[in-house]
């Protein structure tokens, strides 16, 4: 077996892992900290991808710039969606699975809307660096993987700092555990959750823009990412960003090796297979409660 094949699979896996962390950190927040099972998260990722693609083909704008510019919009979208969710489902208390059906409906409607608007063909972007690959001896570093890796890492680490060092960040960490204490401090838990969910959706938008740099997208891609988006927090421990990075590393490397040695058609099954195994054996992951 060629050592360079192995090395390249490993490197790709790590680069992919960084991106996977960006994709799933939103769920670590929404599901892990706020207990909102947003299975429509991949739909928002795709919205980010399509927005970046449209901006790129119409105006030639780099996807990362689009992501930065649109983040406030995604944030607002998340905040509004959470209000609706809270008013319709959380307040009523029982039947938490209705909220699940709600998000499933949103996922589905978004996918069909994208099909209606853009058709089922793949869309991609053109940037200066996508075709370029840096070489270090036997190891290739494709920029289309490396650039998203860097941005993802920056975003994830930035979020971790925000959550653990700022006052607002710590209220988010607290809101999953002790709402009464927050009330006593004069903080409205619902508002905190709303803003945190907004952040969650904003990360989805950014992840989407990064996704379309890595590979072309089409509307049904969202569903393939559901497995990933939930497998990583489950592996790494719900609500732990450090755990998300570990889970992403495991999944990134596993996917990369599967694609390299078994063929890319098996790759989507990896995340779902890992998820099923993780659920069967360790529901609270390696780090979490």
């Amino acid at each position, binding site marked *: 077996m060629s050592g360079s094949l192995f090395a390249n699979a490993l490197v790709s896996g790590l680069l992919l892992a960084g991106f996977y962390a960006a994709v799933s950190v939103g769920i670590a927040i929404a599901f892990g900290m706020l207990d909102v*099972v947003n299975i429509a998260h991949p739909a928002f990722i795709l919205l980010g991808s399509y927005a970046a693609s449209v901006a790129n083909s119409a105006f030639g704008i780099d996807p990362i710039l689009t992501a930065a510019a649109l983040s406030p919009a995604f944030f607002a979208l998340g905040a509004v969606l959470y209000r609706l969710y809270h008013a319709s489902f959380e307040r009523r208390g029982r039947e938490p699975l209705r909220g699940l059906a709600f998000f499933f*409906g949103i996922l589905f409607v978004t996918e069909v809307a994208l099909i209606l608007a853009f058709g089922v063909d793949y869309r991609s972007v053109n940037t200066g660096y996508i075709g370029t690959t840096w070489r270090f001896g036997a190891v290739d570093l494709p920029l289309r993987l490396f650039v998203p890796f860097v941005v993802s890492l920056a975003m994830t680490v930035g979020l971790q700092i925000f959550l653990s060092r700022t006052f607002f960040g710590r209220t988010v960490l607290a809101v999953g555990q002790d709402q009464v204490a927050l009330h006593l401090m004069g903080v409205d838990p619902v508002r905190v959750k709303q803003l945190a969910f907004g952040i969650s959706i904003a990360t989805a938008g950014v992840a989407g823009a990064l996704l379309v740099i890595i590979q072309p997208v089409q509307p049904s891609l969202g569903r393939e990412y559901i497995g990933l988006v939930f497998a990583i927090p489950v592996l790494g421990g719900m609500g732990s960003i450090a755990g998300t990075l570990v889970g992403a590393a495991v999944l990134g490397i596993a996917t990369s090796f599967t694609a390299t040695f078994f063929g890319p058609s098996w790759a989507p099954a990896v995340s779902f297979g890992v*998820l099923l195994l993780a659920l069967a054996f360790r529901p609270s992951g390696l780090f979490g409660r």
Partner: protein
Amino acid sequence: MRTLTFTGIAVGIALLVATATSVLVENEYFFSASYTVLQFVVLATAWNILGGFTGYVNFGSAAFFALGAYSGIALDKLTSAPLPLVILAGAAVAGLVGLGMGYLTLRLRGVFFAIATIALAEVLFTLVVNWDYVGGARGAYVALAQTPPLGFRSMGRLLFTVMALMAAGAVSIARFVQVSTLGRGLAAIRDDEMAAECSGVPTLRLKLISTTLSGALMGMAGATFPWFLSYVEPHGVFSLSYAVNSIAMPLIGGMYDWAGPVIGALLLGGLQQILQVNVPADWNLFLVGALLVVFVTVAPHGIMGWTRRR
């Protein structure tokens, strides 16, 4: 009303409708459209045993439907088996997978079960696409007999009758579950699983029964699908339409009662058959998804909820 009586009436109605239409209706399209609607009656009823009665949401209905269909294909390739055996095989395989998956995930929160069902559908899809024995991505053909057995005028009419009987059977089973002790236990699990466990309900055992039964009935619905189309390929069988419809129909009809899924399937299924002719397939799906979101937000107890003011 005793279960046996109800089953007799249901089967009687199915046979009556099947015979009457077979004689009176000339248009073959009627039979294929009605087959599809009745198929949804079975799917929605099956889904609701686990979803509405027990409170566990299954997003992977397509997986169980596909298991039924592909069991049929595999069996057909092995030996040309008669239809009743194909149906039994489809139900058995799907039921077993339901049991296995339940065993793996039902000890966890309902949310994890729901996510696992999505995972199951995707994993199964990938497996099927890569399995050449059943045709893989290219799909598989099923040979149809030149003259349909039992004196039916066409295969479409035969399958319509079979599906009508399956619908009668599924609905009878659902009603039986609902009014039996099992049903009361499932309802307790749905309302408050911890309290149910502390009232003596063996929650894990009942959940497993529910998942197995639900999966088996969905597999049963899928088993005749290859003969309906005479050609089966993964994207069609694993279509998201099955997942969305099997949730939307009980939701719209009413999830707490066996009649809800029937109402939802007849209304929504019928609507889609009508629209299908005039409207592109994707708008059709968009409508179903939108109705799902609207109903789950605004009218979660569905049509039966309005009439009973629950």
